[in-house]
């Protein structure tokens, strides 16, 4: 096996494409966790976003409609989660797991209702490639980064904007304070409940978009297992990235690289059963987790419902 394979530009290009669902979903989860909400429904929301995007694309043939509806589906689940976790103060993991299963069911149910059972699964048109004029001509980088579909650029911009929002604006500070010390935030007049609701809806929309990227950029079809653990990995990336957008981006690229690698390796190492190569990203995830947890500091109030009336 030649080692040049590992630094092949087409491999990097595929890794960047494959990182998009992880970046979008990871940033959505990050936004929610920074406000104090732990969302374990993320895998289901990614699957639902993928299903909605596929069905909208299949029915209308328009990718913009597909993206919009997928974002709306994620936002709707985020709204329900916030209704339970913020206003009902229910246990976030319990509600999240229930919503996870609900989303899985809704995703395949709606696919079955709209598409039915067919011998060959229908496909949607992929997002078109948009070359950025000028930049695409750059040596190596041009091919890897700037001859991509629009969601790649959107994901890059999102990381920057989310960072600026969280760490350079008053609203970002308020959001983080709701996640660190809601009682103190409340005392200075910050509406913790409204902030968490907003973060949940916006974060949910991003997670839905992350799901939409799967059929629209990678597979072209929808299957029940389309998310393949990417939602859980995005949840993990938030820890890996220390609750910072650039950390999520870095982790997403790393994972996408390992994910893309299996396809390249499969071409060379024909003797290895494909299932063992498919295990690679998941085994890698477990190894990375051990490091990710060392010294990780979550937002102080993460996962804890805030009760204004409670005595300190």
């Amino acid at each position, binding site marked *: 096996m030649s080692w040049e394979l590992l630094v092949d530009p087409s491999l990097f290009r595929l890794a960047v494409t494959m990182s998009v669902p992880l970046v979008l979903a990871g940033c959505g989860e990050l936004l929610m966790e920074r406000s104090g909400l732990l969302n*374990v429904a993320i*895998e289901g929301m990614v699957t639902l976003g993928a299903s909605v995007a596929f069905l909208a694309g299949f029915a209308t043939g328009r990718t913009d409609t597909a993206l919009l509806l997928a974002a709306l589906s994620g936002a709707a689940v985020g709204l*329900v989660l916030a209704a*339970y976790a913020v206003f*009902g*103060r*229910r246990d976030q*993991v*319990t*509600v999240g*797991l*229930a*919503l*996870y*299963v*609900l989303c*899985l*069911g*809704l*995703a*395949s*149910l709606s696919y*079955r*209702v709209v598409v039915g059972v067919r011998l060959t699964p229908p496909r949607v048109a992929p997002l078109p490639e948009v070359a950025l004029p000028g930049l695409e001509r750059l040596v190596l980088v041009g091919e890897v980064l700037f001859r991509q579909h629009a969601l790649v650029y959107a994901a890059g911009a999102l990381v920057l904007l989310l960072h600026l929002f969280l760490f350079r604006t008053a609203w970002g500070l308020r959001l983080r304070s709701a996640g660190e010390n809601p009682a103190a935030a409340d005392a200075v007049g910050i509406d913790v409940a409204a902030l968490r609701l907003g973060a949940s809806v916006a974060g949910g929309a991003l997670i839905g978009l992350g799901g939409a990227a799967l059929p629209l950029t990678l597979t072209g079809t929808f299957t*029940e297992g389309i998310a*393949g*653990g990417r939602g*859980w990995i995005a*949840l*993990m990336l938030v820890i890996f990235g220390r609750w910072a957008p650039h950390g999520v981006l870095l982790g997403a690229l790393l994972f996408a690289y390992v994910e893309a690698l299996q396809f390249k390796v499969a071409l060379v190492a024909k003797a290895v*059963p494909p*299932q*063992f190569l*498919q*295990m690679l990203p*998941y*085994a890698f*995830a*477990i190894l990375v*987790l*051990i490091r990710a*947890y*060392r010294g990780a500091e979550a937002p102080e109030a993460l996962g804890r419902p805030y009760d204004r009336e409670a005595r300190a």
Partner: protein
Amino acid sequence: MTSETRGLFRSRAGDLWPYVGGIVLALVVLASFVRAAGGDVAAALGGIVRASFGSAVGLGQTLNKATPLMLGGVAVAVGMRGGVFNIGVDGQIYMGAVLAAGLGLGLVGVPPLVAVPAILCAGVVGGAVWGAAPALLRARYGVSEIFVTVMLNFIALFFVEYLSTGPWNDPLAGEAITRPIAPSAHLPMLLARAGAHAGILLALAAAAAVWALLYRTVLGYEIRAVGDNPTAARLGGVPVERRIAFVLVLSSALAGLAGAIEVAGFHTRLILGLSPGYGVMSILIAVLGRRTVPGAVVGSVFFAVLVVGSDSLQRSAGLPASGVFVLQAAILLFLLAAEGIRRTA
């Protein structure tokens, strides 16, 4: 009886109404599905009853379905009681099934008295080994067991795909199915005419044993103490990490047993679709049963009726199999909402 289990059996109307409401909601959702699919609601509901417990064969199917769900539900519930979320029941079922099938393929000529216990033990070991990795990582490095168990689900699934299409594949079947295990390793039948195997008895016995462990032993007391308040437990001298690791291994061993029962009692071989979502259903069952062992037992039978009933709807009214997830999750969300309203009211 502890306060917790007493609370479950105390049938105050106020405690039960969210459950009644949840079942009514389930029926309404189901009826609207059937209507939307253009079916006859009354005939469909009658079909569910006949298919799940209104006939001998239906009852047998429900008991068979309740077996893995009961073991899975108890597995998740005992984990939650000890402060761990075992999301990896599916993977542990599969690894239990792998070891059971691997042993079962080679048990030709061994008398059932030896073969059946051996294959069940193999399942327990397979599940326990698959749960030992997240247990170790949680206890040693503080890594959340949620992620590790989920990742191991995928790894187990790919491994089963490899075995069932590769080295153990049955060339006559063609699909992702292995060769059959030795007939002497088959689980005995409980109700032969109804097609119910004896797995349900094993599941009930396992549930009783787990209940006794939790509420009748010092170890169980310590497990519950860790689940309620790890800091207080540590100050009280409980080795918190070791109890957490133990409860996760125990939980996955139960799931592994379910895998062995599916192989030895139902499929008589390892197949790729061995677990049609038992893992996620187990989570719902545990939450529905308020994280108690008796609650999970009752919940698993209820879910088995739902699964078998919606299988019949799949044939009669065209309701897809995934519809049952929506139904189950909707019931749970209704319960969570109803309890929230009751608490604040």
